């Protein structure tokens, strides 16, 4: 099980791989769409890569609730618990 800091770092790596955004730009309060300019297709790629990295399942209907990076970190942390 990963700590929230580890989940954030892992997500930042996935976002960087998909979009080229600097990992340090991926902060907890950042909105995926409004701040990081991530479109729905990239978001799905990030979700599937996060599932694999953290060994969790993020249902499609849950993805729309993951508005900020913090939402995603919290969801993954809970799913791992």
């Amino acid at each position: 099980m990963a700590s929230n800091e580890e989940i954030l770092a892992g997500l930042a790596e996935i976002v960087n791989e998909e979009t080229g955004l600097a990992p340090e730009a991926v902060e907890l309060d950042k909105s995926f769409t409004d701040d990081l300019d991530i479109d729905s297709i990239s978001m799905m790629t990030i979700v599937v890569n996060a599932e694999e990295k953290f060994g969790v399942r993020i249902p499609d209907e849950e993805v729309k609730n993951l508005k900020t990076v913090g939402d995603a970190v919290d969801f993954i942390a809970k799913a791992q618990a």
Partner: protein
Amino acid sequence: MARKVVITGLGATTPIGGDVPTTWQNSLKGVSGARTLEDEWVARYELPVTFACRASNRPDEVLSRVEAKRMDPSTQFAVVAAREAWKDSGIEDIDHDRLAVAFATGIGGVWTLLDAWDTLRERGPRRVLPMTVPMLMPNGPAAAVSMDLGARAGAHTPVSACASGTEAMSMGIDLIRAGKADVVMTGGAEAAIHPMPIAAFSAMQALSKRNDDPEHASRPYDIDRDGFVMGEGAGALVLEAEEHALARGARIYAELAGSGVTADAYHITAPDPEGLGATRALKAALFDARAQATDVVHVNAHATSTPVGDKPEYTALKAALGNHVDNVAVSATKSQTGHLLGASGAVESVLTVMAIYERKMPVTINLESQDPDIPLDVVTSVRDMPGGDVVALNNSFGFGGHNAVVVFRNV
């Protein structure tokens, strides 16, 4: 009077060069882009053909990592060539609502399609990339080029197998003449050096099996030709309404004077043995260009090096040009680049335009013993093009009986 269409920008990424200057210089030297494939899948699938003409520069090394991962290799090639052509045109201020794209492919995103199928079978649907559909669609190259340039007057994708690239240029002429655009980025892209297309083309006996001597395998018009060699890459040409080009003081390479597109309606793969469809395309193209057969000094032939394909093209040239065919210098540049399928017409048009602009004609390699049934004047060492007013043709023919011819004239 129809609007005159001129060519003001060129781009290419081919097996004999990563850009136009390199491709052009090598085409005059006569180099082969064919190499034995090093990929592990050649042995894994025991492919009957073990070589091809790989692009000399990988497009994902030119594009940024994030750009590249959202594009099929065919689209990557298209964007690389289109960017070169756009920069070369020198266009800066333009009404983007008057800029169109006609960018062809023969096969489309075959790597993406088959990778996704492998992923589905091996790892399940969840792992199939969300970008799969936009990456595999055949309009992917045109769409990516349109977004890259901000071209909003339509992005079109003629698909007619190996005639696609030339047909895209024909469409570009039509768009400008019809007043639907002032500038059209035309071209073709292909990235099909994948085990499945190799196996499939091989199954139809279309590919050369000269595995022990790849560099001499593509040999159009030679008596020992045994099939084509697969190539990959892209060519791009900026077409522009003449008045638009003159108003901005553009460098003009040549006029794209006309085109002819016909269908054989004869057989799905075999060319009409009498070349009737190709003859009609040649005649239509010359008529469209208001050119006489006797104006033609140079032809960049389709000439893929298949036993059945090269001769009907000669028959058609003879029918369309009459005895003047003996005075025409013919280059079969697939001997160097291999066959870039849907990109071939665009790459060969780039070479034809350069031939007019530089007054030098590219070389046909590997012609050791010319087929006596094809008594063309083949350019086997670099040759000057005559001075004065000249017309040159580029022919492309595709499975499905597609024939496309474009006519270039000096300015």
